[in-house]
C-alpha cells in the first residue's frame, strides 16, 4: 500500500491585497519504515486577528510532524498510539510555539493557530483537530467529515492551539482501517465544500479531485500542484472566500 498525496496553501486576497503573508501552513509526507507505510497530513491556520499566526501555524505543523516521525521510528504501530499520545503531540507543538514567542518577546496568543491532522497506516487511522477546518474521508459509502468544523458561537470565533484551555478543545478520533481517500482543508475552503444546511460533504468538489490524483501517473504525469494552485486561486473560488486556503489530498493505492 502506498499513499499518493498532494497539498498546497495559497494566500487569500484579504491578505495579499494588504501585502501580508498567508497564515495557512501544511505539512504532508508518505513515510515508509520497516516495511510499513504511513501517511501524515497536517494543516494549520494562523488566526486572522494576529500577525504571527502564520508562524504559529508553521511551527505547529513542523513540530508535530517530527513528533509523529520519531514515534514511527521507534517501530510502534499506530494502533498502539493512545489519545494521550496524540494530545502530547499537540502539546509539544504548543510548547514549540511558546518557546518561539518567548524568544521573540511576544505573547503566545499572538501566534494563535488552529490545527488539523491525520496519521494513517495500513491498519489504523488517527485524526485530531483543534479549531475550525475539516477532515473529510472517502470510502465506498461516500464522503464524510471526521469532525464537523468546530466553531465558537459566532462565524468569526474558533479555538486555537495557543488557548489556555486547548486540551478541552482537542478532538480525537480513530478508525480500524484507513480511509481510501482523505482530504484536510482549512476554513477558507469550508463554505465551498461543505453544505452547512444539511451538514454534508459536497461530493462534486472532492470526487473529481481524487479521481485525477488517483489516475495521475507517479512519473511523467501532470503537475498537479500547479493545477491545484490554479483551482484555489480561480475567480469563482476567490469570489466566495478571500481567506487563505489549504487543501491536502491523499489516496491509498493498494
Amino acid at each position: 500500500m502506498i499513499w499518493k498525496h498532494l497539498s498546497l496553501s495559497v494566500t487569500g486576497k484579504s491578505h495579499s491585497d494588504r501585502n501580508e503573508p498567508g497564515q495557512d501552513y501544511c505539512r504532508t509526507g508518505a513515510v515508509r519504515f520497516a516495511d510499513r507505510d504511513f501517511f501524515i497530513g497536517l494543516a494549520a491556520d494562523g488566526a486572522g486577528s494576529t500577525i504571527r499566526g502564520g508562524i504559529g501555524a508553521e511551527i505547529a505543523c513542523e513540530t508535530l510532524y517530527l513528533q509523529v516521525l520519531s514515534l514511527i521510528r521507534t517501530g510502534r504501530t499506530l494502533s498502539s498510539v493512545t489519545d494521550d499520545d496524540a494530545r502530547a503531540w499537540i502539546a509539544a507543538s504548543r510548547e514549540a510555539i511558546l518557546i518561539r514567542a518567548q524568544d521573540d518577546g511576544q505573547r503566545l496568543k499572538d501566534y494563535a493557530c488552529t490545527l488539523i491532522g491525520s496519521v494513517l497506516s495500513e491498519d489504523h487511522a488517527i485524526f485530531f483537530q483543534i479549531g475550525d477546518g475539516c477532515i473529510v474521508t472517502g470510502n465506498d459509502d461516500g464522503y464524510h467529515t471526521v469532525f464537523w468544523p468546530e466553531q465558537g458561537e459566532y462565524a468569526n470565533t474558533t479555538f486555537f492551539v495557543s488557548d489556555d484551555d486547548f486540551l478541552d478543545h482537542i478532538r480525537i478520533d480513530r478508525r480500524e482501517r484507513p480511509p481510501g481517500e482523505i482530504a484536510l482543508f482549512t476554513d477558507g475552503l469550508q463554505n465551498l465544500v461543505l453544505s452547512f444546511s444539511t451538514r454534508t460533504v459536497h461530493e462534486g468538489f472532492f470526487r473529481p479531485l481524487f479521481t485525477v490524483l488517483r489516475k495521475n501517473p507517479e512519473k511523467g504525469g501532470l503537475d498537479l500542484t500547479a493545477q491545484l494552485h490554479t483551482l484555489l486561486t480561480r475567480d469563482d473560488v476567490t469570489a466566495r472566500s478571500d481567506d487563505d486556503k489549504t487543501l491536502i489530498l491523499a489516496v491509498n493505492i493498494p
Partner: protein
Amino acid sequence: MSDDTMYDQQPLGPVTFAENPEPRCPCLLLLDTSGSMAGKPIAELNAGLRAFYEELQGDSLAVKRVEVALVSFGPVRVISEFNTADFFLDPTLEAEGDTPLGEAIMRGIEMVRKRKEEYRANGIFFYRPWIFLITDGSPTDEWQRAAAAVREGESSKSFAFFAVGVQNADMSVLRQITVRQPLKLQGLKFREFFQWLSNSMKSASRSNPSDRILLSPPSGWSEI
C-alpha cells in the same frame, strides 16, 4: 507536453461548489420615538435611517449579509423583524408617547435570541449581534431588569450592546444599562451616526472567520 496543453487540460476544472447561504451580521436598532423627539429630531432620525439602508443596499456583500431589525419605543413597536437591507419599508417614524426603554430592550433581546435560533436551525453562520439603543430621554418604565439582561448578554457574549444618547438623554441611566461607555450624539448628527454604523457593518460583513471585528472610532458624530 508543453505547459500550454497542461493548462488547457484543466483536469481539476469539473469541480463544483456547495451552495451555502451567506453568513449574517445581525444589527438591532432600538429607537426612541417618545414625544420629546417630535420635530427636527425625528425628522433627522428618519433621514439618517433611510441613508443607512441606502448605504447597505449599495454594498453587494453587505446587502446579502447585514440583517437589520427596527424597534421603536414610545410605545414599543416592532417596525421590522430581522431582514437584509434590500427589504426596507421606509417606516417614517413619528414621535408620540412616553419612553418605555426597559420594555424595548427586553423585546429586542428576545428578538435577537429568536433570530440566532433560526440561524442555527438553518445552518447559517452568523456574527455576534449588535444592539444599538438610541434615546433622548430617561426611561418611563422599569429598566433595572433590562439593564441586568444587557449585562448578562454581554458577559455571555450573546450580543454587543451600545447606547447612544441624544440631546437631553439621561446619560447616567445609560451608563447603568450598558457595560460599554455610552456615546452622546453631537447635536442631531443622525446621518453621521448611521454613516459610521453602515461602514462598521460593511467591514464586519467582510471579515473572515477568525478575524476580530473592531468598531472604528465613533468620530464625526459623538461628543467625547
